[in-house]
């Protein structure tokens, strides 16, 4: 009869290895997809908004400093997208409606950034914004014409865009909230606009409480 002791020891060691592997591989059982890991990493890293030149639906060009001193509620989309972006922008509209009107444009600006600058010129954006009752002022739609700047922004905010065969893009989506200093402070689930809205209203309320 062979001793089973080393065998039991090996079983135990394998189990420990398994727990360690899954713990390490899912950031302590919190992130099972690369997308949730990405959001966790972003919230840890809190990147600041890189130098980017926007061209909006009214044909105006400006950099992120246009929004200095205000919160910016961001999404990334492209207008030819018929699936996720419609839901994304529609839900962004619901957050937009939930924010008290007197704060819009003064304390917070909504900004939809297109990552398809070739097709989303100002005229197209001007048309697209009307589908979502964006006023073009407190909720702006803009493209980033400079390819290098666009790539840097997408990279900084962890947006992955893959062109597909039919001229569209597969991409991950979320609501991004940038604070008045230009730092990314929150990444929210775009499928839950109510939660995102209450979070935004809460953060704005805090700001006011601090005399801001």
């Amino acid at each position, binding site marked *: 009869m062979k001793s089973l002791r080393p065998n039991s*020891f090996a079983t135990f060691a394998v189990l420990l290895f398994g727990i360690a592997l*899954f713990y390490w591989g*899912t950031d302590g059982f919190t992130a099972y997809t690369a997308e949730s890991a990405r959001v966790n990493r972003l919230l840890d890293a809190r990147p600041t908004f890189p130098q980017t030149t926007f061209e909006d639906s009214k044909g105006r060009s400006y950099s992120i400093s246009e929004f200095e001193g205000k919160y910016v509620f961001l999404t990334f989309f492209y207008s030819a997208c018929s699936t996720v972006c419609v839901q994304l922008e529609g839900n962004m509209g619901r957050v937009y409606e939930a924010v008290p009107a007197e704060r819009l444009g003064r304390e917070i600006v909504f900004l939809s950034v297109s990552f398809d600058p070739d097709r989303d010129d100002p005229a197209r954006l001007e048309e697209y914004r009307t589908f979502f009752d964006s006023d073009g002022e407190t909720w702006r739609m803009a493209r980033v014409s400079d390819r290098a700047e666009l790539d840097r922004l997408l990279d900084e905010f962890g947006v992955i865009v893959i062109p597909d065969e039919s001229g569209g893009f597969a991409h991950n989506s979320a609501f991004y909230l940038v604070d008045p200093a230009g730092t990314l402070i929150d990444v929210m689930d775009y499928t839950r606009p109510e939660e995102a809205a209450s979070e935004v209203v809460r953060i704005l309320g805090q700001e006011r409480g601090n005399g801001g």
Partner: protein
Amino acid sequence: MKQSVYGLALFILLALPPVAGLMESLMIAHMHMQMPLLVASGFLMAKYGQIRFPRFWERWNVNGVPGILLFAIVAVYWMLPRAMDEALAFPAMEAFKFVSLSLLCGTPLRDSWPKVGYAAKSAVIIGFTLLFAGMGLLYVIAPVQLCNNYLLLEQIALGWGFLTTAICMVIFMIYHAFTRHSAYE
């Protein structure tokens, strides 16, 4: 001994950048061809380990349970959508995928399968069938893209790959249950 060489040759073939790149460009080939082939290469290479280090296996893997557990843990780990994404994003994870699927998954399976009893074998087969069916449904039904590196359509294809594998395993189990094994032994 010869089969260990074949195993090594298979491993090297899979690791060649053009071959790896081609297989990883398709989600379903990544999970249902490259990964099982890596396990197979380890399974073949195991022969060398068994001949070279017989004492190691006799001592640490007496009843096959540690080996089967290791096989199952590593196999399940690589089914996480995130693990697959990270293998594409980080070269170190890619290296870990090759080493773990061959040496920590295929090799222990080879040594353990003949050692474990009927109950353990059934548990592994039934467990993986359920898991495949579950993963298949998840990938087919999930409305969101689970992997950042692959398109939704590819994800659905992978889901059907899982489901068909599960169906084949069910057919195998039925076949196994209704065959008179004594007639063939």
